[in-house]
């Protein structure tokens, strides 16, 4: 068994599309089930290093430790859910070709411990995202895709610059060797590399000075696909960025800078959401806000906070899947995602799903978001950073304002259309809601795993 199957099999499925053109949706489900099987197989063998194509540290290295296992299983779960959820869409071969490759790109980003290989997977994931953005083939979609491609190209140029500077000065591409040699480099070059990485990954992780484009892209993207961007893509980039940072063992001021950026990002995003009149954009801003919290928490280098952040990543992915998929149903009926359209639908089921998603994101018990936020706040309190605790709570109040405004708008206004949710969708969405409730009531098993994962993340990649 080889870790490379996580990458090779989805790509193979996409390459062979001409042989089963009309059945690709079933093939995608099978591929994702197969990948889930691989993940289950590797669970008892953690942690694991594998050299690809050459049995020596000179070759590309894949690493499956606790934290990458966490992300790998999360992404496979999301993609399996997505392919099952859209299994009835006959005329959507194109989506599945791209999402299969998207899966392998995201998994490659997580598994690879070789910086140039990470760049390749970075590009694979980004290009699938550009194509998915332009999928609607209208003016709006294309203008979104063009904007996305311009910022994405700038991001990959700066990432490439960082990689080149590292190779020029250290001579190695493996993360562990780079981590071992990073502090022997000249101080100026170190900061240059960090700045280039920050610009490259900052654009992709949608962090403050570099995230002015995000809401536009989410608005242009088909709603279900926007869920994937929120649940998979940004998380993959986030993980890689912090994986590299902890491996390089950057000094405290740099981490403090990231904490400040995260807090600012959270605040600005929630305030923008308050102003917005389009539900899709509101969800995009809410994603930005949560990513700000994650940035803030992941840069703390504290095991409790980071384990809370990992828990929050899982909860946020599930909640955003629920919200975007339900919004997709609303959009199909009302032909709009404006707040007025959102206020006009009638469906007790969808209303419940929205309510659960909002409450979980806000961190209200008994939903899983509560546990995540509680862990993060507890960690910050134990570090003595009460200012951050207060700030997070205050900004969460803003978040609560617009979520409750949306819900009450739907409660109060006159209903124009009744939405009947198909059975498959009903089952899938209820499963997500139950998962959130379950994790909120019995979080201990997952929390323990998150603590192990957080330790691995903070430790970074060690020299093999």
């Amino acid at each position, binding site marked *: 068994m080889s870790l490379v199957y996580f990458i090779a099999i989805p790509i193979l499925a996409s390459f062979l599309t001409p042989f089963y053109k009309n059945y690709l949706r079933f093939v995608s489900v099978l591929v994702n089930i197969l990948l889930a099987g691989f993940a289950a197989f590797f669970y008892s063998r953690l942690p694991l290093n594998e050299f690809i194509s050459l049995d020596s540290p000179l070759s590309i290295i894949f690493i499956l430790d606790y934290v990458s296992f966490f992300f790998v299983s999360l992404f496979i779960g999301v993609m399996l859910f997505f392919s099952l959820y859209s299994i009835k869409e006959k005329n959507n071969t194109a989506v599945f070709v791209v999402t299969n490759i998207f899966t392998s790109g995201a998994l490659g980003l997580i598994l690879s411990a070789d910086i*140039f290989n990470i760049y*390749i997977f970075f*590009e694979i994931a980004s*290009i699938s995202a*550009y*194509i998915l953005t*332009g999928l609607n*083939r*209208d*003016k*709006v979609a*294309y*203008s*979104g*895709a*063009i*904007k996305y*491609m*311009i910022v994405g*190209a*700038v991001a990959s*140029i700066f990432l*490439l*610059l960082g990689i*080149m500077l590292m*190779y*020029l000065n250290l001579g190695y*591409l493996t993360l562990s060797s780079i981590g071992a040699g990073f502090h022997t480099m000249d101080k100026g070059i170190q900061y240059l590399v960090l700045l280039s990485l920050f610009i490259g990954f900052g654009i992709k992780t949608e962090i403050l000075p570099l995230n002015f484009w995000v809401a*536009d892209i989410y*608005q*242009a993207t088909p709603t279900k696909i926007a869920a994937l961007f929120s649940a998979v893509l940004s998380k993959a980039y986030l993980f890689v960025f912090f994986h590299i940072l902890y491996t390089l063992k950057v000094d405290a001021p740099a981490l403090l800078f990231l904490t400040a950026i995260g807090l600012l990002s959270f605040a600005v995003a929630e305030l923008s959401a308050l*102003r*917005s*009149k*389009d539900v899709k*954009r509101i969800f995009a801003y809410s994603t930005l806000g949560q990513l700000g919290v994650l940035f803030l928490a992941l840069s703390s280098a504290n095991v409790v906070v980071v384990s809370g952040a990992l828990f929050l990543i899982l909860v946020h992915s599930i909640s955003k899947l629920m919200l975007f998929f339900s919004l997709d149903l609303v959009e199909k009926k009302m032909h709009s995602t*404006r707040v007025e359209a959102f206020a006009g639908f009638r469906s007790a089921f969808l209303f419940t799903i929205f309510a659960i998603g909002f409450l979980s994101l806000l961190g209200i018990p008994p939903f899983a978001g509560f546990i995540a936020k509680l862990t993060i706040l507890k960690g910050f309190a134990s570090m003595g950073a009460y200012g951050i605790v207060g700030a997070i709570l205050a900004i969460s109040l803003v978040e609560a304002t617009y979520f409750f405004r949306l819900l009450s708008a739907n409660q109060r206004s006159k209903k124009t259309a009744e939405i009947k949710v198909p059975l498959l969708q009903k089952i899938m969405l209820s499963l997500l809601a139950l998962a959130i409730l379950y994790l909120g009531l019995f979080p201990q098993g997952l929390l323990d795993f998150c603590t192990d994962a957080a330790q691995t993340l903070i430790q970074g990649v060690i020299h093999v």
Partner: protein
Amino acid sequence: MLETLNQTTFLHTVVAIGSFTIFTIGLVGVLSKKNLFKIFLSLSIVESSLFLFFIGSHFEVGKAAPIVADGIKLFDGHMVDPVPQAMILTTIVIGVAVLALSLTFVVNYYRLSGNIDIDKMDELGEVQ
């Protein structure tokens, strides 16, 4: 005089100054130009400047290409590092793939809207 021109450190300085000048020209183009074609041309220029920088910085005077051909019998330290060349090879192909995709988007967008100016792309944003 000509001796100093042939020294590796001098060449590296030329490569660094030259390629970062081109890099800056390209980036300024990306930021200041409004025509979408111009933006993508500038992005390609920026990318090429990085390739020149990387390959040039790995070259040292007197080193041969990493290929065993007539005259050279063995792989050793008298050859340039093959890894940067392989990396750039990969990146050039990726670059052209992305470029073709983005130009298709531009052409399709033009067909639907008749517009090619980035400042006039106002389909997205808060609707009043």
